[in-house]
């Protein structure tokens, strides 16, 4: 009897310690970003295109990268959802759990999940060269989609697998087709979709290597899918490799901005999905 309370106490302490560890790790990263970013973050940074002096610490902002990142992440997330929801649904609802294709598909996405983005970048680049395409927004979106689809699928799949079977039975016995049952499944896994989406957005918006080879970089805002596009991580990457502290600080400003964008997306998305998930059965 005593042992179990002791165990409980110890585990409680361990949990608190890990929470503190996580918070302090993450806090120190955020702190680094915020401390270095706040002093240089200004309205000009957000609202202006870079001037040529920008790189050496003079004027201009990173509007190009903000817009480019949003384009790429938006496009890739859209494509990612359009492709991964059907796949998740197919391997969970249409196929039996033991079906060969379902097992094989899961394995495939696990492997795709682990492929480094530089390989996706290289792969995309090779194909572009092969097809004679130029670096462009479109190529960036496609490569980033490839990169995040496995994240989408695997994290949604994990949640969908937990779906109570009774739920499906009820829907079927009301005469719904499997496709119509999707509506219910989506409600139940909405938080899972949210998590998946943010993991993917996270990876998409922070990825450097995938876009460096395919979307290129530019100081302008792309006006068509065929033009290259700048991205925040690349802009951070370029600026961090500058000799001047001023410029490096701008990289932190960009990182802070990226953080803020992710925060806004996250809160909006969670609010939106909360609407769906509040009826989730537990």
């Amino acid at each position, binding site marked *: 009897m005593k042992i179990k309370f002791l165990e409980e106490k110890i585990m409680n302490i361990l949990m608190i310690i890990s929470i503190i560890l996580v918070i302090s790790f993450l806090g120190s990263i955020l702190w680094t970003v915020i401390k270095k970013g706040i002093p240089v973050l200004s309205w000009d940074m957000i609202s202006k295109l*870079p*001037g*040529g*002096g*920008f*790189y*050496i610490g003079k004027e201009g902002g990173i509007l190009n990268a903000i817009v480019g990142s949003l384009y790429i992440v938006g496009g890739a997330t859209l494509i990612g959802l359009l492709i991964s929801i059907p796949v998740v649904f197919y391997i969970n609802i249409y196929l039996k759990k033991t079906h060969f294709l379902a097992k094989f598909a899961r394995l495939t996405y696990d492997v795709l999940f682990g492929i480094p983005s530089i390989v996706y970048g290289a792969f995309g680049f090779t194909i*572009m*060269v092969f097809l*004679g*395409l*130029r*670096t462009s927004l479109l190529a960036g979106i496609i490569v980033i989609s490839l990169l995040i689809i496995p994240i989408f699928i695997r994290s949604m799949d994990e949640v969908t697998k937990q779906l109570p079977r009774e739920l499906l039975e009820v829907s079927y016995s009301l005469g719904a087709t499997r496709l119509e049952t999707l509506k219910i499944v989506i409600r139940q896994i909405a938080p899972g979709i949210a998590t998946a989406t943010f993991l993917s957005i996270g990876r998409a918006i922070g990825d450097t290597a995938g876009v*460096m*080879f395919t979307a*290129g*970089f*530019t*100081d*302008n805002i792309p006006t068509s899918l065929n*033009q*290259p596009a700048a991205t925040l991580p*690349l802009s951070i*990457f*370029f600026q*961090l*490799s*500058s*000799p*001047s502290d001023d410029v*490096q600080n701008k990289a932190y400003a960009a990182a802070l901005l990226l953080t803020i964008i992710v925060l806004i997306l996250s809160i909006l998305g969670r609010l939106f999905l909360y609407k769906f998930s509040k009826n989730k059965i537990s």
Partner: protein
Amino acid sequence: TKNDDPNNNTNEIQISGAFALYPMVVKWAEEFKKENPEVRIDISGGGAGKGMTDVISGIVDLGMVSRELHKEEIKKGAYSITVAKDAVVATINENNPGLDHIKKIGLKKEVASKLWNNTISYWNQIDKSSKNNYPIRIYTRADACGAAETWAAWINKKQEDLEGIAVYGDPGVASAVQKDKFAIGFNNIAYVYDLKSQKPYKGLTILPIDINNNGIIDKDENFYDDLKMLLKAVSEKKYPSPPARNLYIITKGKPIKPIVVKFLKFVLSKGQKYTLENGYVALSEEDRKEELKKLN
């Protein structure tokens, strides 16, 4: 057939390649756009090889390259134009216990060769007068890059032969040396000198090269006090090459797209005056003329 290429008549220039040249080209592009507002220039980094591959496979118009071209590359049609110069220098920590004396002796080529070969591991192997046998910590670059290639070329090696702790990126090496009393590394000039104050960054000092190999840094070997002096020495070729190096912009074959030619001409004329403030070395007058000829 090239003249029929509709691409040739647009006002767009796409550039990719070495990070070493990236800030300079960004500046040039901005100035060029002031004169020609209708032009759109997209510049991205990615590395010299990327610029090379892009140009050869026609993905971009211009490539930035920070190393000498390989024969295969020239065979495949790479056409290089030197647009600026740059130099790599040896850096040590400001608080090195034997700083003053070491700076007097300088760095001989053969010593450098042994250092990055890992055959010297204590400071007093270089500086006999130093009493303490402090360890030497040798830094090199992790990423394949022109700076390391150039530094290796000076001691007749390849980048892959350089031993030492490999750190990612120019700023990485600079800050590693800044933090480590016993460090020695190498950097592009721009990462050593503060462009505003013209002096080396706090914590960093340049270890002069003993060019004539006489065991002491003579007066005319000592031009590291401020950025201007060093750049002048590079431009006058007093500082050996390598570790000074040419920076190239390449095209696929001789450039014919009008807007590209116009841009390159701008770079080789008015553009040269922006080099200094960005930490690069302008071409000498005759070099400049030579390169301009390549465009006609």
